[in-house]
C-alpha cells in the first residue's frame, strides 16, 4: 500500500517543516525567554514588536508538523502523541499563554507585568518541553502492537532534561541574534551581551547531547561510528567546528546578520545529526518510516498540494518578512 519513494519524500518534507519551525519559532520563543532580562518599556516593546507581524506564521509550521505527521505517518503520530502526553499538553498550554500575550499585553496596561510574565514563562516552558520531547523520543518509547505501552512519566529522564535545557539555550541564542539584527540602540547592545554568554552555552549543550546520545543504545553508536558511515558522519562535527569559528569572528559590531545566519546553520547541522541518529526510525527501535507510512493514495494526494503550495508559502512568507524589513525602532525617537 505504502510507496517507499513517497515515504522518503514525506519524511523529508516533515523534517523540513520541523526544521522551519525550530528556526522560526525558535527565535520567537528565544525572545520570549530573554524577555524578562530586558528593561520594561522601550526594550521590551521593541523586542516584541520585532516579531509581532510574523510569530503566527512561524508557529504554523508546528501545525504542519503535527498535521503532516498525522496524514503521512498516522501510526507514528498516534504513538508519539500518547507517549509524550504530559510534556505535549504543557507545551500547548504554554503556547496559549505566550500567543495571547502578544495582544493582551497591549489591551490591558494595568496587568502588563502579568502578561509579560505569561509571555516569558510561556516561551520558556514551550522551549523546555519541546527539548524534553526531543530527548524522550531519542531515548525511545515502549510500543506494543500499534499502541504506546509505557508509563506517564517515562519521558522524564536526566537525558530529556539535558535536551530540554539545550533547546532553551539554543532558542535564546537565536532570539538574541535576531534582536542583534533587527534592533538598534540599547536593545541591540543587550542582545550582543547575551550572545556572548549564550553562544558558548549552546555549543556546550550541543557537545553534551552529542556525547550522551551514542550511549543511549538504540544502535546510535553504530549509525555514527561504523565504517564506512563514520567517513560521512564525522563531517557533521567538523563543519560545526568551522561554523563556530566563523561565528566567533562575526561578533564584531559591523556584523549584524551574520551571527543569526551562522546560528541557523549550526542548528541545521545539529538537525542533520539527529537525522543520522534516527533514520530509518520515526520512533527509535520500534516504528520505521515504512511501518508508519500512510498508503500511497494518501501521501500522493498530499504531495500534489505540498509541491505547489510549500514554494508559494515560502514566497509570501518571505514577502511578509520583506515588508517588515529593517530595524524595528529608531533610537532617540522620544
Amino acid at each position: 500500500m505504502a510507496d517507499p519513494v513517497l515515504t522518503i519524500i514525506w519524511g523529508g518534507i516533515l523534517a523540513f517543516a520541523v526544521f522551519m519551525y525550530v528556526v522560526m519559532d525558535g527565535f520567537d520563543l528565544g525572545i520570549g525567554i530573554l524577555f524578562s532580562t530586558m528593561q520594561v518599556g522601550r526594550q521590551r516593546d521593541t523586542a516584541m514588536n520585532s516579531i509581532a507581524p510574523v510569530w503566527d506564521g512561524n508557529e504554523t509550521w508546528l501545525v504542519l508538523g503535527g498535521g503532516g505527521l498525522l496524514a503521512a505517518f498516522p501510526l507514528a503520530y498516534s504513538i508519539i502523541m500518547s507517549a509524550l502526553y504530559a510534556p505535549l499538553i504543557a507545551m500547548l498550554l504554554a503556547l496559549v499563554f505566550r500567543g495571547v500575550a502578544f495582544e493582551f499585553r497591549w489591551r490591558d496596561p494595568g496587568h502588563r507585568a502579568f502578561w509579560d510574565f505569561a509571555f516569558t514563562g510561556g516561551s520558556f516552558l514551550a522551549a523546555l518541553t519541546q527539548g524534553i520531547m526531543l530527548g524522550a523520543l531519542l531515548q525511545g518509547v515502549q510500543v506494543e502492537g500499534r499502541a504506546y505501552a509505557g508509563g506517564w512519566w517515562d519521558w522524564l529522564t536526566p537525558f530529556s532534561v539535558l535536551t530540554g535545557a539545550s533547546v532553551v539555550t539554543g532558542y535564546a541564542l537565536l532570539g538574541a541574534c535576531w534582536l542583534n539584527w533587527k534592533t538598534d540602540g540599547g536593545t541591540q547592545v543587550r542582545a550582543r551581551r547575551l550572545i556572548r554568554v549564550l553562544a558558548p552555552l549552546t555549543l556546550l549543550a550541543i557537545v553534551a547531547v552529542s556525547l550522551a546520545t551514542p550511549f543511549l543504545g538504540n544502535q546510535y553508536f553504530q549509525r555514527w561510528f561504523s565504517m564506512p558511515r563514520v567517513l560521512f558522519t564525522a563531517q557533521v562535527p567538523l563543519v560545526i567546528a568551522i561554523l563556530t569559528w566563523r561565528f566567533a569572528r562575526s561578533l564584531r559590531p559591523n556584523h549584524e546578520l551574520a551571527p543569526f545566519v551562522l546560528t541557523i546553520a549550526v542548528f541545521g547541522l545539529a538537525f542533520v545529526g539527529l537525522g543520522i541518529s534516527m533514520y530509518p526510525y520515526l520512533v527509535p527501535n520500534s516504528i520505521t518510516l515504512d511501518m508508519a507510512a500512510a498508503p500511497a493514495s494518501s501521501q500522493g494526494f498530499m504531495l500534489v498540494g505540498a509541491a505547489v503550495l510549500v514554494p508559494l508559502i515560502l514566497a509570501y512568507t518571505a514577502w511578509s518578512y520583506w515588508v517588515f524589513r529593517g530595524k524595528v525602532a529608531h533610537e532617540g525617537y522620544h
Partner: protein
Amino acid sequence: MFHDADALFLARIQFGFTISFHFIFPSFSIGLASFLAVLEGLWLKTGKAVYVDLYKYWLKIFAVVFAMGVVSGIVMSYQFGTNWAVFSDRAGPVVGPLMAYEVLTAFFLEAGFLGVMLFGMKKVGKRLHFFATLMVAVGTFISAFWILSVNSWMQTPAGFSTNSAGQFVPAAGWLPIIFNPSFPYRLVHTVIAAYLTTALAVGAAGAWHLLRDSKHEHARKMFSMAMWMAALVAPVQIFVGDQHGLNTLEHQPAKIMAMEGHYQSHEKGAPLILFGIPNDEEQRMEHAIEIPRLGSLILKHDLDAPIAGLDTIAPENRPQAKVIFWSFRVMVGLGFLMLALGACSLLARLRGRLYDWRWLKRFAVLMGPAGFIAVIAGWITTEVGRQPFTVYGLLRTAESASPLAAPAVGASLVAFVIVYFAVFGLGSGYLLKLMSRAPQPHEPEPANAPAHAAGITPAQALAGGRAETTHG
C-alpha cells in the same frame, strides 16, 4: 484497548471542552474577516472615512479574536493524537490529508498575510493592503472548508475501504471523501452561522453606542450593515438548517430521533414535541408538550408520514436524547429570535426609524451573544448526536481513545479548564472593553503596531487603544 470508562469519559469531556472554546473564535473571525474585507473594499471604492474608521476599529477586535483562535486551534491539532490515538491511527490516512491541506491552503495564507493586514497599512499600498485583507478572509473560509469536510466525513463516511491494519484508506479518488454526503449542507450551514454570529455581535456593538448617541455616524453605519445581514441571512439560515436536517434524517436517522425526542416509532403522523424531559434510561419523554402530526410535516413534509423512533435502533447505538434534545431547541429557538430581530429591523427601516426605536436597539444588544450560543448548541447537537461513534457506524468512540489512565486525562482536563477560563475569560473581557468604546473619526490603528510600521511611540502604545497615531 486497556483504558477504563472514566478515562474515556474524561477524554470526551476534554475534547468537547477544548473544541467548544476554540469554535467560538473562528465562528467570529470567519465573519469578521469578511466584514473587514467589505469595509476596506467600500473604503477603496467610495473613499468615505467612516469605512476606514470602522475597519481600524474592528481590526483591533479581530486581532484579539484571531490570536485566541490560533492558540486554541493549535491545541486541537494535537488533541487527536494525545487523547484519540486509535482514531488517529485508523482514520489518519483519510482525515489527515484533509487537515494537512487545511494547514497548507488556509493557515499559512491567513498567517502570512495577517502581519501585513494588522501592521502594514503604512508599509504597503492601499490595494496591496486590501489584497492582504482579502487573503486572510479567503483563508478563514478555506479553513472552514477543510475542517468541515473532515467533520462531515466522520458523520457520513464515504469513499473509503479498510486495509489489513484496520485503517480507513481512500478507495478510489478523493472527491467522494471530500464531498461526502453531509459536507455541502454542513459547510453552508456553518459558514452562514459564522456570518450571522458576526452580524449579531457587530449589530449589538452598534446598538450599544446608538443607545448612548443615536446620531453617532459610525455606530449607525455598523448597526445598519449588521441589521441588513440579519434580515437577509437569518431566513436563509433557517431554510438551510431545515435542508441540513433532512440530510441528517437520510444518513443519521438516530440523531434526528434523539433531537426530536422520538423514543417511540409512529406509524402514522408523528407529533412535534415542543418541550419535555427526555428520560434516556427508560427511553421515554416525560411531561411532553406536543403538537400532533407536525413532526411528520417538518421531517417528511407530509402530515401522515410514518416516523421511526429510537426503539428501532439497537440500544448500544443510540445517542443521548437528554443532551441533544435540549441543545437542538436552544439553537432553533435562537434562530427564530434572529429572524425576529431581522424582521423588526426591516420594519423599522421601512418606517425610516431604524436608529430611533430604543427597544429595537435593546433587542439587538441582547442578541449580541446569541450567535455564539447557537453555534455551540448546534455543534453539541451534531457531535453528541454522532455518538457512540467517532466514524459514524464504523468506529466506536470507546475504541478510538488513547490507552490513557484516568488520572492523566483528568489532570490535563483540569489544566485546560483553568487555563481556558482564565485566559479566554480575560480575552473576552478585553473584547468587550474594545467594543464598549465607540469608533472615532480617525480611528487609530492597533496600538501594538511595530514602531516602524505605524509610527507610534511605545509610550503611547502602552496607553492602549486610545493613543492617537503620530505620523512622521
